[in-house]
């Protein structure tokens, strides 16, 4: 029934021995499957006999073999990208960890020892940024990349190239952060980048701007990733895999990504405004009225959801690992999920508890104290659910379990000490002390603990090799002891002021204990790296399912899974996992326990007689994501020092050139990522992947523009609403631009009509009209701006001028992006594209109309009111 050969004796292409993971691969059954019930994807108890896709199949995809270096630059496969994320994030763990060790040495005695004040400030600031942004989330997203599509029953993410792009943008943003140290100094004002320390008067170094831009670049990567994951998780679930049946880890990622979509858009706005203050000279955060407060609002509106963004995946890993190693389904599973949903929503209404010592009023502080206490309640439910699961199960103390159990203990300590901070009066005392430092390290590094458990848990799945259990346990023992030696003394000497290295000499012994703990913690990771590296090459070969009682679908395929993941189309339609259209696999023999891999949607079992399906060709390789990230890296590097002149403007131009060329390259590259023929798609079943992706992106853009407009409104309220001067002298140019944009929107829908009527000329003409009107809009705006400049009104003239130029400038930038896309589409339409498939015009229209809608608000707000 499948187009693949089903001959299980098809000859092997020898794997390159250079790659440990590849060594274990055998080609006993091609991806299309086999008719043998037991011979599908899982080869139980046969040692090194794991199965992978036929090499011939891999040639089809132009994807080089695992052992080749080239593969890792061009791959778009979710499993490869997941591995890249995990490895890169562990590198950043070392980076951030070494910085931490440096300042723990500095804190050995009160007062400076090995670092200058500036050096210490940089180390502390960048340590925070690296650990939160470049280590924790990407580490979790390594697993999300690898595991979530497997748990969904998908072959890959919805937009594989964008997934690779997210990774490369993440890597290069981290490199940019590293570069910032070399440009005088990296940002040294703390990881929260509070205003006014974040403006150039206080942090004038080029490197400080680079740090901000690196974070902006990272945020862009996160946005792309959010759109991709949300589209995938809502549209590409296996048949029968309703949201309620989704495995807990995937649930935790789903909610994480929803929070990311909205929270990171607010951060993007904050960072764009900050970059503008630093590079273009706007004066948002220098404004006397509300400037500093604006940053805290924008930052913590992002920052509090961010706490759960980094913690939820850890929670998901804990739940998954507890289920497997206690042999029990999560107690109160439905309520656990409901509690996670509640937290995800509530996370957006607690941000001002980070601001109890700012000038916000008492009423709003009280309100946010209440919401903060409110958000602890669902967490209580989750913690008890995890505890009861353990009580009711029979626990096997493996390394993943130990780490996850340790994480639960640490999280309880971190959570309870956080309640103190949520109370306004207590926060007056605790704010700016080591109580805060200890609390959030118990929570955040508590989360890391669970994710390390996840690394051990999925290591056999990803590599096909078992880690060394004894060394794993030694790692855990040292980790747990080191952790508590490091962070618990901070509670004891909580009166130590945060962010400085001078403290009461009476505290010295406790800080020395903490420093010793830091080195023990750091050393424990050396054991992990040794263990995992050695096991990768010479570990015992792992079966498809090395863990008895595992319940999720990734364990129903071989370790590592084949390129296309499954030996057919996974389905849970009859309550258990089966593979339609190919041989299928039972995880039974390997599972030992209850005899079958009971996937969270049901039981994985053999379904040899399943109906066939046509195997669609899928692409897995593209070099453009890498090229785009390189272009963006050079662009940001040029941007960092462009206002200082020198070589930077040329670097900027070079970067923009590479970026533009590679974007064009990717747009022109034919790349096919097949959608699944049937599946669960609630609540977006009637919206095609590309369209849903566009809408989700626009939702984040709503928050981006909303945060810009909100910043304007906030600054105006702080300034005095009626004292505010409207910058443009008259509203006529703005009104004309309103008419122009409305007409251009009309032209886009006319293009859609023309495409449906199969009129090539109509499509080209309508898009041309759109293009010309867009140009007219920009020219009109340009004339208005030049007049204002001529009168001496510049971006830095006043907060009124800053908000006017930056907000309408961001809109103008959106128009320019739209025009570039329009130009690209006109050339394609000229060659007859879009007549048989007008979806690209429709999706472009969604963007263009959105830009139109934004102007409908900017016009009255900046010209009339």
């Amino acid at each position, binding site marked *: 029934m499948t187009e693949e050969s089903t001959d299980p004796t098809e000859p092997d292409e020898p794997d390159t021995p250079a790659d440990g993971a590849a060594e274990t691969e055998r080609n006993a059954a091609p991806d299309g499957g086999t008719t043998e019930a037991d011979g599908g994807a899982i080869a139980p108890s046969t040692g090194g006999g794991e199965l992978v896709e036929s090499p011939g199949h891999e040639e089809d995809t132009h994807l080089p073999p695992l052992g080749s270096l080239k593969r890792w630059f061009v791959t778009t496969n979710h499993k490869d990208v997941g591995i890249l994320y995990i490895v890169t994030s562990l590198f950043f763990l070392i980076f951030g960890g070494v910085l931490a060790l440096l300042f723990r040495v500095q804190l050995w005695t009160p007062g400076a020892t090995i670092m200058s004040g500036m050096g210490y400030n940089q180390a502390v600031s960048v340590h925070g940024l690296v650990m939160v942004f470049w280590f924790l989330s990407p580490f979790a997203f390594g697993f999300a990349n690898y595991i979530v599509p497997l748990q969904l029953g998908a072959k890959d993410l919805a937009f594989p190239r964008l997934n690779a792009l997210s990774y490369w943008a993440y890597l290069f943003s981290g490199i940019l952060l590293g570069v910032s140290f070399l440009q005088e100094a990296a940002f040294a004002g703390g990881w929260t980048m509070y205003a006014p320390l974040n403006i150039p008067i206080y942090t004038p170094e080029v490197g400080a701007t680079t740090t901000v831009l690196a974070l902006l670049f990272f945020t862009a990567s996160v946005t792309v990733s959010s759109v991709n994951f949300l589209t995938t998780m809502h549209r590409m679930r296996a048949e029968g895999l309703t949201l309620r049946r989704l495995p807990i880890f995937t649930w935790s990622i789903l909610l994480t990504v929803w929070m990311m979509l909205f929270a990171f858009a607010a951060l993007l706005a904050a960072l764009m405004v900050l970059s503008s203050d630093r590079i273009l000279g706007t004066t948002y955060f220098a404004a006397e009225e509300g400037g500093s407060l604006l940053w805290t609002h924008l930052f913590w509106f992002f920052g509090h959801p961010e706490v759960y963004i980094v913690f939820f995946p850890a929670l998901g890993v804990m739940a998954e690992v507890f289920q497997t190693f206690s042999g029990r389904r999560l107690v109160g599973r439905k309520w656990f999920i409901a509690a996670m949903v509640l937290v995800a929503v509530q996370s957006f209404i607690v941000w001002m508890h980070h601001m109890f010592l700012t000038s916000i009023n008492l009423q709003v502080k009280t309100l946010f104290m209440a919401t903060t206490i409110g958000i602890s309640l669902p967490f209580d439910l989750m913690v008890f659910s995890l505890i009861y699961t353990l009580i009711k199960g029979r626990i096997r103390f493996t390394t993943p379990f130990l780490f996850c159990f340790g994480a639960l203990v640490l999280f309880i300590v971190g959570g309870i000490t956080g309640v103190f901070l949520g109370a306004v009066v207590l926060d007056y005392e605790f704010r700016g002390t080591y109580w805060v430092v200890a609390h959030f390290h118990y929570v955040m590094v508590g989360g890391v603990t669970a994710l390390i458990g996840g690394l051990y848990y999925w290591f056999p799945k990803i590599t096909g090799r078992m880690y060394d259990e004894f060394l794993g346990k030694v790692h855990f023992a040292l980790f747990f002891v080191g952790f508590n030696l490091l962070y618990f003394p901070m509670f004891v000497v909580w009166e130590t002021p945060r962010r400085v290295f001078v403290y009461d000499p009476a505290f010295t012994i406790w800080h020395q204990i903490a420093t010793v703990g830091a080195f023990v913690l750091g050393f424990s990771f050396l054991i992990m790296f040794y263990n995992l590296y050695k096991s990768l090459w010479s570990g015992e070969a792992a079966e498809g399912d090395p863990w008895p009682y595992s319940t999720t679908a990734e364990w129903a395929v071989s370790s590592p899974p084949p390129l296309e993941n499954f030996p057919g189309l996974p389905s849970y339609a009859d309550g258990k996992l089966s593979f339609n259209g190919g041989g299928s696999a039972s995880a039974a023999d390997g599972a030992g326990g209850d005899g079958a891999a009971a996937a969270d949607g049901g039981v994985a079992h053999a379904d040899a007689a399943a109906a066939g399906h046509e195997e669609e060709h899928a692409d897995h390789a593209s070099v453009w994501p890498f090229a785009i990230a390189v272009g963006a890296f050079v662009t940001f590097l040029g941007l960092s020092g462009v206002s200082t002149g020198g070589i930077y403007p040329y670097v900027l131009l070079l970067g923009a050139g590479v970026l533009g060329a590679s974007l064009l390259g990717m747009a022109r590259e034919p790349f096919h990522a097949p959608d699944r023929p049937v599946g669960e798609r609630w609540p977006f079943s009637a919206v095609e992947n590309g369209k849903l992706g566009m809408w989700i992106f626009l939702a984040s853009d709503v928050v981006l523009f909303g*945060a810009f407009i909100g910043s304007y409104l906030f600054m105006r*309220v702080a300034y005095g609403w009626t004292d505010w001067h409207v910058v443009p002298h008259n509203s006529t140019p703005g009104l004309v631009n309103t008419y122009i944009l*409305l007409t251009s929107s009309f032209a886009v829908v006319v293009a859609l009509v023309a495409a449906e009527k199969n009129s090539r000329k109509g499509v080209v003409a309508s898009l041309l009209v759109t293009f010309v009107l867009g140009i007219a809009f920009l020219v009109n705006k340009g004339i208005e701006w030049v007049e204002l400049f001529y009168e001496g009104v510049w971006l830095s003239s006043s907060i009124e001028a800053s908000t006017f130029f930056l907000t309408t400038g961001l809109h103008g930038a959106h128009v320019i992006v739209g025009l570039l896309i329009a130009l690209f589409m006109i050339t394609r339409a000229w060659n007859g594209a879009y007549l048989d498939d007008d979806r690209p015009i429709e999706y472009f229209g969604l963007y263009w109309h959105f830009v139109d*809608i934004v102007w409908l*608000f900017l016009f009255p707000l900046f010209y009339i009111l």
Partner: protein
Amino acid sequence: MSHLRLYTGIYVVLFVLATAQVAVEFAGLLENAYLLGFGLIIALSFVKALVVAGYYQHLVWEPRSISYLMGIGLLAVLALTFAASYSIT
């Protein structure tokens, strides 16, 4: 889904609404009754936005879930803007 006549009608409506919005300013409402004028102008912006989203972005024909998605984004920034502005002492 696409009907040229409907699109044209929508375009005319949008044009009229945009003109009406400026007419509120020219009528001097902002000088005499600022709040009323402010409310009218913002309301007109929302009406135009809904018309564009509903008919040019086809939201009236799409599953409601897309509208809710955009609504959630809007709600989030409105919450941020109002709470932040309210917090000012």
